[in-house]
């Protein structure tokens, strides 16, 4: 660690302060910072995409072992097809690239839903009410009631009668406990982020600046 903050630390510290100034109100310095951030971040992903996606996944395989990877020309062409939308007459061609991209990932997503979410979550909700002590049984019962009442809340195509309305109400209560608890649970992690930022400002910038080590 250098005793006097270097230029990089100065830049980072001033940008940190400028970004925090948004909390007071919008101002030209924040606007400058926010525009710079938008530009740099986009440029950053240009570098990342080129060096970490296109180079290793497309260029390198094609140049090093074309015979094994000749088919990668197709995604290259599909990628270029996306740009057909900038020519009004041929805009419809780009639909092919979009359709393949979307449908593949949505198919993949489908495999995660019933297989990876519905069945395992259902298995989790099925807890025997005989094996353990009264305490555990009560908690298992609470868990099961929670899952099923929330599901009943999500019934759309049936008019609620007296019973289902009450069960759905219990479901809403469970949702509210969950939202409140999750909110409270998250505060700590967010404060840790702020501690990290202020640590940087105080320990790496201000202290060296005023000569405290």
């Amino acid at each position, binding site marked *: *660690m250098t005793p006097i903050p270097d230029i990089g630390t100065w830049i980072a510290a001033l940008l940190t302060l400028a970004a925090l100034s948004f909390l*007071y109100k919008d101002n030209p310095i924040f606007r400058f910072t926010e525009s710079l951030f938008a530009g740099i971040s986009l440029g950053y992903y240009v570098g990342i995409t080129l060096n970490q996606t296109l180079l290793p996944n497309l260029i390198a395989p094609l140049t090093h072992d074309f015979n094994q990877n000749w088919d990668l020309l197709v995604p290259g062409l599909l990628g270029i097809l996306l740009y057909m939308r900038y020519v009004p007459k041929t805009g419809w061609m780009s639909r092919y690239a979009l359709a393949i991209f979307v449908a593949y990932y949505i198919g993949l997503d489908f495999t995660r839903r019933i297989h990876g979410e519905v069945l395992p979550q259902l298995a989790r909700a099925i807890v025997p009410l005989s094996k353990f002590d009264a305490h555990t049984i009560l908690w298992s019962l609470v868990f099961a009631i929670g899952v099923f009442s929330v599901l009943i809340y999500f019934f759309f195509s049936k008019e609620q009668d007296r019973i289902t309305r009450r069960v759905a109400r219990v479901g809403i209560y469970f949702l509210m406990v969950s939202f409140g608890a999750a909110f409270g649970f998250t505060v*700590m*992690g967010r404060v*840790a982020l702020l*501690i990290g930022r202020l640590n940087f400002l105080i320990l790496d910038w201000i202290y060296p600046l005023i000569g405290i*080590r």
Partner: protein
Amino acid sequence: MASFADRLLGLDRRWLFLLVFIGVVTPIVFPIGLPVTTTASTRAAFEYIEALKPGSTVLISYDYGPSSAPENDPMAEAVMRQCFLRKIHVVICALYPLGGLQLANNSVAKVTAEFPSLQYGEDYVSLGYKDGAAAVIKRMGDDIAGAFPIDVRGTPLSQIPLMKNVKSLRQVDVVLTVATGIIGEYWITQAHAQSGVPVIIGPTAVGAPKYYAYLNAGQLVGMLSGMKGAAEYEKLLAARYPELARFYGSTRAFTATKGMDAQTVIHVIIIVFILIGNVAYMSRRAAQRRAGAR
């Protein structure tokens, strides 16, 4: 009363922002040292390392990124200080892809600077970063040099005195994984399960619950859960070692104890404001009802 309640309810949120800011800055600059009670899992980790003989080897793996640094940094540093005081050898590696190595380098530089007599290569070694956590851990179980052929300074492991007797995880006495995300679990399911090396984990508070099962099953010898766990560890260290008590009482650097001060203060601020808001809301509603009844 009602008008005061209205003013409270319509409070400019920037006052709250200012309070939060002060609440975090103050403990960083002037530590308060709020009381922390130690939990069994932290004590277990502490005592396990206390029981190691001088010359044993502890591996500390930096398995987290910058966003959880305030929670995770103090854990790694506290254990490192304990090891150095007890003349236990420390091997450091980093398995988290984004920024893990830089964190490890900074943190190691900071702590080793506190112990000027330490010799790199004799007392501690930094292996650097390797991509593909699960595969790396698996490889280290058989052959550490296979996973990390050279250390962070470019020296082949075979030429490093400390590594002479540490060929695989089997010769490591305990692993501390300071982790966010999945890498901590790899140490349990791969390293501990295959080579039997004891594991201590230092997860973020959000990640901690899932490790209780491993702790109960005896697959972990201890756990420092979140910033609170790290603060507990600092308290245990300060109680055992007067020099660390002096250090933690006077350091300018960030410690988990300061972090917990800030966390507690912010939680108190938020809870107090919620309560104030509710009192003001109730009194306004009561006033409105009275006005309506008239």
